[in-house]
């Protein structure tokens, strides 16, 4: 790859792309061999900063074995090594280890995607020092000590793949590098020329919380963070908001007991953005008033609320079936006008086309540019993934309610829309079928990591599924609470933690109803 190694000219202008956008763009080209030229072009057009791509160039030109890939204020992802046989630095690396190392604070993995050959995403392994864990979007890894600060994604040998991680961690003030070749930590040298706040290197053995610090944690917010700290304050980047710093500490002490956390504003463009939306129906019912909501890529948002709170209206607005009377709704920054296949709406009923077989139902909605054989193959594989293999030629009316819903899910997944909008899709199913649909949907979400907005009035359903809860209130429809849900995968309705949360959320719903004592919202 022949690139201007100086790159100072390009760096001088503000970069218009982040690394994530760069990688997305390079991937969208589809052709690995075309990427160096494309990169060169992007550099010459100054669409991307030299800083962002330098590691790749270094790797290509100098055979560097340890290199910083990207650092933003909140996180740092590094590709530490990869093998000589790798096809390219961005796609199809072989045996690379990506290290995410926040020191102090916590790592929140909001999105990951690992693409093996043939584009089949699968979960990368997050390996701290200790037993391997699955890297699960939406979960929080509390970093209790330095020994756990290193999170490495190891790629199994022989599988070419690209890993894109969107990680939010806060605050990140110091970094260490794990030397995969020697199995030791090395220090990151101070970089005076780096963009963003300079890295402060902490004294290595610190960061184990001392008991004396514990009582400070539950202090009400608003108290300035640095004052409450001893010793670590120097490591905290000065520009970060006090609450962010504080929350890191809070979380560390409360650990996993703190399941509901305020949704914090995220950097980067929202996938779906709702700004000051209001909607009145023709009969002057004010379905939505002043609703603003940002949904980020990979989130599983449950809209929860009593009937008439406008949650379905909001969903249909996102789908484009309703154009709101006021405000703006965007997808990836583009205003939403009308329904589109990139935002797939699933309804309460399976809504299969009754005159087509199960498989034809899927092939019919697929892109006409695919050949017939491709469409059939895709339909079959998606039907298998929802355990409907062998029912390809059944007619919809021959299926049970749960099977119809699964077929409908397969149809929705087959078009591979990045956003799934679901309007109480499991409301008409019996409890047992619904639970199996929950498991299926969770596995789909973890596998494909789509952005999902899910409307429900069932608290337990919302808690089992969501990574974020948006509680709405009626008359006029508005957002009452917006909380992140810090629960790992494999949640079960009978978990005590979940039941405790359910009580808490039902309290919110009673508040939404405005009837504090006798609202029965248990679905």
């Amino acid at each position, binding site marked *: 790859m022949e690139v201007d190694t100086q790159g100072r000219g390009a760096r001088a202008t503000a970069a218009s792309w982040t690394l994530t956008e760069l990688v997305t763009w390079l991937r969208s080209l589809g052709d690995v061999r075309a990427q160096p030229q494309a990169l060169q072009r992007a550099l010459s057009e100054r669409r991307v900063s030299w800083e962002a791509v330098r590691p790749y160039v270094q790797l290509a030109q100098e055979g560097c074995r340890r290199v910083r890939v990207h650092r933003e204020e909140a996180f740092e992802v590094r590709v530490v090594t990869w093998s000589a046989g790798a096809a390219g630095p961005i796609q199809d690396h072989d045996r690379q280890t990506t290290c995410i190392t926040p020191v102090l604070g916590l790592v929140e993995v909001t999105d990951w995607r690992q693409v093996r050959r043939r584009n089949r995403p699968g979960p990368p392994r997050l390996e701290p020092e200790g037993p391997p864990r699955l890297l699960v979007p939406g979960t929080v890894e509390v970093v209790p000590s330095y020994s756990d600060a290193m999170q490495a994604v190891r790629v199994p040998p022989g599988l070419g793949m690209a890993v894109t991680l969107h990680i939010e961690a806060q605050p990140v003030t110091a970094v260490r590098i794990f030397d995969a070749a020697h199995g030791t930590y090395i220090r990151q040298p101070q970089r005076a020329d780096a963009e963003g706040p300079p890295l402060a290197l902490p004294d290595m053995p610190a960061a184990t919380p001392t008991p004396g610090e514990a009582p400070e944690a539950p202090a009400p917010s608003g108290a300035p963070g640095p004052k409450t700290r001893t010793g670590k304050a120097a490591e905290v980047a000065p520009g970060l908001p006090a609450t962010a710093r504080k929350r890191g500490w809070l979380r560390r002490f409360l650990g996993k007991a703190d399941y509901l956390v305020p949704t914090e504003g995220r950097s980067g463009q929202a996938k779906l953005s709702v700004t000051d939306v209001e909607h009145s129906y023709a009969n002057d019912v004010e379905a939505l008033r002043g609703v603003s909501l940002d949904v980020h890529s990979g989130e599983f948002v449950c809209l929860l609320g009593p009937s008439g709170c406008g949650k379905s209206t909001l969903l249909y607005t996102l*789908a484009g079936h309703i154009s709101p009377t006021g405000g703006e709704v965007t997808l990836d920054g583009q205003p939403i006008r009308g329904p589109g296949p990139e935002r797939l*709406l699933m309804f309460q009923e399976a*809504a299969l086309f009754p005159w087509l077989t199960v498989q034809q139902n899927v092939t019919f909605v697929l892109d006409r540019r695919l050949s017939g054989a491709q469409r059939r193959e895709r339909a079959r594989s998606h039907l298998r993934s929802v355990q409907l293999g062998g029912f390809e030629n059944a007619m919809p*009316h021959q299926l049970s309610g749960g099977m119809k819903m699964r077929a409908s899910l397969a149809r929705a997944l087959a078009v591979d829309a990045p956003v799934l909008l679901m309007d109480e899709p499991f409301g008409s199913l019996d409890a047992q079928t619904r639970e199996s649909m929950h498991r299926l949907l969770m596995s789909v979400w973890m596998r494909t990591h789509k952005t999902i907005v899910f409307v429900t009035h069932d608290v337990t359903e919302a808690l089992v599924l969501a990574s974020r809860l948006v509680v709405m209130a009626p008359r006029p429809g508005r957002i009452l609470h917006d909380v992140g849900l810090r629960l790992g995968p494999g949640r079960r309705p009978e978990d005590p933690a979940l039941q405790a949360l359910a009580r808490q959320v039902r309290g919110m719903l009673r508040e939404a109803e405005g009837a504090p004592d006798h609202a029965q919202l248990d679905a």
Partner: protein
Amino acid sequence: MRSSTPRMRLLQRAGAGVLFVALWWAISHFGPWPRFLLPDPFEVVKRLFGMAADGSLWGAILVSMWRLIRGYGLALLIGLPLGIAMGQSVVVRNAVRPLVMGLQALPSICWLPLALLWFGLTDAAIIFVVVMGSVLGVAISVNDGVEGVDPLLLKVAGTFGIRGTRLQLGVLLPAAMPSIVTGMKLAWSFAWRALLAGELLFVSGGLGELLTIGRELLEIAQVMAVMVCIVLIGLAVDFIAFRPLQEAVRRRWGIEGTA
């Protein structure tokens, strides 16, 4: 009808048939009209077989059916798109629907004088009458069918980005198919009546001509034989074409029960 087994039903039907034939026979022998004005059933059947044997019946049937097929086919070709357009576009619907409903009230045979002036004594005139007799029925039933399509399916189609002809042919038409088939069956009987009325009024081959000739030659057996034949054809088309079609659509669409 409560608790009628198939065998009972068959017995009842056969009984009614025998009774009908017996009554006919009795009236023809003892009724007010002379035998040559009301031949008994056996003479009619004998005449029917006679005409079938000498080929005159088959020729007439072929001529009539060929006209019907052309007229009915043309009616479908015009009526289906018209019905879909009415169901899809509010403008077309508001503009065309009252006109269609009004014209539907006009018996199709009223078009014959115009048709004769416009097309002369040709097949085209009769085909025109047949088309006018059935096209509106097709359009209305397709329109009703399209408007009765489950709005959820349309939303689904919208969310998958299915529009234009793919929506019309891939979703609207099949979704409306059960009522379209019913409409087609109705339109078929309209077309059949329009055809015979037209054929009766001017001589040009076909079953209508056989009827007219029979009347003019006082061959009442022939008239009645042709009438029987017309009834049989109507039943046969229903049983051979429409019943299986309706049944297939019902089975495919998963509609419960039969109507």
